[in-house]
């Protein structure tokens, strides 16, 4: 069994294809969609958790690559700039999944990438702007 959070990018020409249908029907994967958007350039972004048999998962990834989908690990999407963070903690009540959490008694902010669902609420709630996203994510605001 494998369980992996990934980000899919759909170029405009395949954004309307039923990709999820194939993942379930042909590869027997469980799909948990965390977030889906289409930007004005008609590019799609799908953030989801896939789980199933390892072999099926690998075949599904291969198939998606062939379809022209861009596949990225979720962890690469939101970047915590520890050099910019002042450890105030303002983000920790805004983050819905406790990916940003406050360690006590150290009173410091920690970022647990695996818990992040790329909601991006922290980006602007951080007064020191220590949270960043990949430049092309900006198109999906």
């Amino acid at each position, binding site marked *: 069994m494998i369980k992996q959070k990934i980000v899919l990018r759909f170029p405009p020409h395949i954004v309307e294809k039923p990709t999820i249908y194939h993942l379930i029907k042909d590869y027997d994967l469980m799909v948990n969609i965390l977030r889906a958007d289409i930007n004005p350039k008609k590019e799609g972004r799908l953030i989801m958790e896939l789980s199933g048999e390892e072999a099926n998962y690998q075949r599904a990834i291969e198939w998606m690559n062939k379809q022209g989908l861009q596949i990225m690990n979720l962890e690469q999407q939101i970047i915590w700039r520890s050099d910019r963070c002042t450890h*105030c*903690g*303002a983000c920790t*009540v*805004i983050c819905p999944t406790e990916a940003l959490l406050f360690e006590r008694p*150290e009173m410091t902010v920690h970022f647990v990438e695996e818990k992040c669902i790329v909601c991006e609420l922290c980006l602007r*709630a951080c*007064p*020191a702007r220590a949270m960043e996203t990949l430049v092309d994510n900006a198109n999906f605001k």
Partner: protein
Amino acid sequence: MKTNRSIEEINAKIKTGKVVVFTAEEVIGLVKEKGVAAAAAAVDVVTTGTFGPMCSSGVFLNVGHSQPRIKLNEAYLNGVPAYAGIAAVDLYLGATALPLADPANRNHPGEFIYGGGHVIEDLVAGKKIRLVATAYGTDCYPLKKIATTFCLSEINEATLYNPRNAYQNYNVAINLGHKTIYTYMGVLKPDMGNANYSSAGQLSPLFNDPLLKTIGIGTRIFLGGGIGYIAWHGTQHNPSAERAGNGTPMYPAATLALIGDLKQMQPRWLRGLSFLGYGATLQVGLGIPIPILNEEIMGYCAVSDQDIFAPIVDYHHSYPYREGGNLGLVNYAELKSGAVTVNGRKVPTASLSSYAGAREIAVSLKDWITTGQFTLTSPAVTLPSVDASISLKTMPQRDPEEREDQ
């Protein structure tokens, strides 16, 4: 034997490397273990710190004379307007100033990506700053326009002067409304979704000398990673606010005006901030040494978070419409635990002031003193305290056409 120590004695011990310094956090345990009298006898100085957003901050600059000369009338630093109504090439840049082209809250909530606070951070970091200015031209100052760049080392003076810093206590902000609000206390989620506070509590300078008995005009301090001084009491200084038995106020009270040479400060401790939907500001790191002149002062320095209280204030209606009142008092130990109970409900808390930063400042100041780099000063004049009968004034709002002879 009762402790009775002078600042001169403390400085003599600093010079010989025999001074004993504790941070305001470390000293709490010492007093608990040994009692106030023994702690006062053992410790010469207690260091404090705070690292929070402080809007009432800014810098005076003298950018030097151009050739031909110019008397700056309208000036912009990296696009951010600076006040030029002083002498020819003197400017004051405030932390909350915004570029004229900033969209502000036209697309609410605005981002306020770059303002005066960010220019100050860039200046301290040694980055090149773009100066664009115009003037009307005079016989002695003929130039009417200038566009150039400079960095901190190339100008005559850069003096950080913050009219109101180090607030002795502050409101805990909460939102009783049904929509998210965007305030200088951060993003407040609807229906009491979170409660934000902004004080270092037990490490905060003015909680450790609550009645202002040791500090005053001329007190040397840690300011922005360098050395600064207390210039005056701060604006909105309100020492008359109601106090607990330990002398700490339960509401926003005393404030300080601070001054220091920006050229020896560090960008680490002067950070430009962007408050969503509110504006730009500056996060200021400062720390004040408290000389343990006697047992009474040690008693104040031993204060801990559970004995310091702050009011919970609604920023949806009560604060903006100045209606007064609050939803009760909470102590800083509760606030720092991550949740407080308001109206019978558990509400998650967050701070805007960095406690980790405050701790680092108090430790740095301790190091400076123990290694002999920093000596204490006696204040030239003490600041107005509880006996000064100050009452905080609000803005007079009357019909400007009203005649005084009627």
